[in-house]
């Protein structure tokens, strides 16, 4: 009986021990992915901010400018692209909507961001765009990969339509979470005017015809929870200028928008809560379960060996699979 039990324990010991590395290095990279149908919104505010008054073509101080960012997973498009890409793909239709203090539109820039659901690598497919312009992203945008490393990454800047390094600047603690802090500075760069302008009758083409150009510079900061790769806080010191042309003769320039943009507090709270729950799930697959299975496997193996050793000890009883045959009955001669 003991020998049977020790064999069963050995089978379970191997089962749990094998499960540990399989879970960490085979299952985790395949199971951890961004859901194709994810929907997320985010509100950022610059309080106060500087905004252009198109009536006077002068910059004015306003109490608040709000940026509403929405990311919406397009499942039908991801299914379509997956057929040719041969891997799990996420398609995010995004909108950055900037509202002035009166709630009216200052600018709105739509984007389509296509990336690998597991690794966050960009996937290049028809429809990838920023404000209607075809782009070819390199690096990441909005989110870091699972198990983010403390190193520089390449981050896509939607305004310039280019990618540049975003530098790892150290590990910090943010609302009780250990996070990696990243920083990217985009120097003054000439960028395109948004397709949708806030004043009726003014189009990007009409502004360009007058020779006026739009310039942009930013310093963006992210606090990224490294297990999930999700930013739990983000800020941007954002500056935009219109320069020269008939609108600003004599090589003049005017601030179109400037402000220190920060995530609204209630959104920081909800993001931290969401990331904390997701972090536990990722840690289950990468740490808690593999280590737990290893311990269980080792314990079962030890128990099996112990039972086996006891069954072999002299006087420990005869194992059931080695039951001796009964002595033959004496037969009369």
């Amino acid at each position, binding site marked *: 009986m003991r020998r049977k039990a020790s*064999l*069963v324990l*050995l*089978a*379970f*010991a*191997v*089962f*749990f021990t*094998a*499960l540990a590395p*399989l*879970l960490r290095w*085979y*299952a985790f990279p*395949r*199971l951890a*992915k961004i*859901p*194709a*149908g*994810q*929907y997320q*919104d985010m*509100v950022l505010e610059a309080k106060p901010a500087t905004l252009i008054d198109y009536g006077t073509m002068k910059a004015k101080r306003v109490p608040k400018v*709000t940026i*509403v960012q*929405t990311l*919406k*997973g*397009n*499942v*039908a498009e*991801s*299914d379509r692209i997956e057929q040719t890409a041969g891997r799990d793909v996420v398609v995010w*239709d*995004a*909108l950055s*909507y900037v*509202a002035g203090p009166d*709630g009216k*539109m200052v600018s*709105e820039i*739509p984007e389509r961001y296509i990336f690998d659901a597991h690794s966050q690598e960009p996937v290049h497919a028809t429809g990838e765009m920023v404000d209607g312009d075809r782009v070819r992203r390199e690096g990441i945008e909005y989110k870091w990969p699972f198990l983010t490393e403390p190193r520089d990454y390449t981050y896509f800047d939607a305004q310039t339509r280019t990618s540049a390094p975003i530098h790892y600047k150290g590990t910090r603690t943010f609302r009780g979470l250990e996070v990696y802090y990243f920083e990217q500075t985009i120097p003054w760069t000439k960028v395109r005017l948004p397709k949708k302008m806030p004043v009726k009758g003014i189009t990007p083409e009409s502004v360009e015809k007058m020779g006026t150009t739009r310039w942009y510079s930013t310093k963006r900061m992210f606090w990224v929870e490294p297990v999930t790769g999700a930013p739990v806080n983000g800020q941007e010191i954002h500056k935009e200028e219109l320069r020269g042309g008939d609108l600003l003769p004599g090589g003049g320039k005017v601030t179109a928008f400037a402000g220190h943009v920060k995530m609204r507090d*209630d*959104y920081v*709270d*909800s*993001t931290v809560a969401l990331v904390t729950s997701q972090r536990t799930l990722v840690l289950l697959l990468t740490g808690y379960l593999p280590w737990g299975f290893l311990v269980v496997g080792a314990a079962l193996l030890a128990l099996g060996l112990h039972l086996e050793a006891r069954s072999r000890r002299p006087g420990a009883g005869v194992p059931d699979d080695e039951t001796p045959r009964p002595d033959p009955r004496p037969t009369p001669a």
Partner: protein
Amino acid sequence: MRALTAAAVGLAAALALVLTVTAAGPPSGRTSPKPLLTTVPEHP
């Protein structure tokens, strides 16, 4: 020999479980009916 068989059974069971779970994978879900926002939401 029986110990080897028991170990093989354990290993096969672990492989079968992991392969089944990863083959099924998480569901992809469906596109949210919520719109891309052009107003400032009151709360998350």
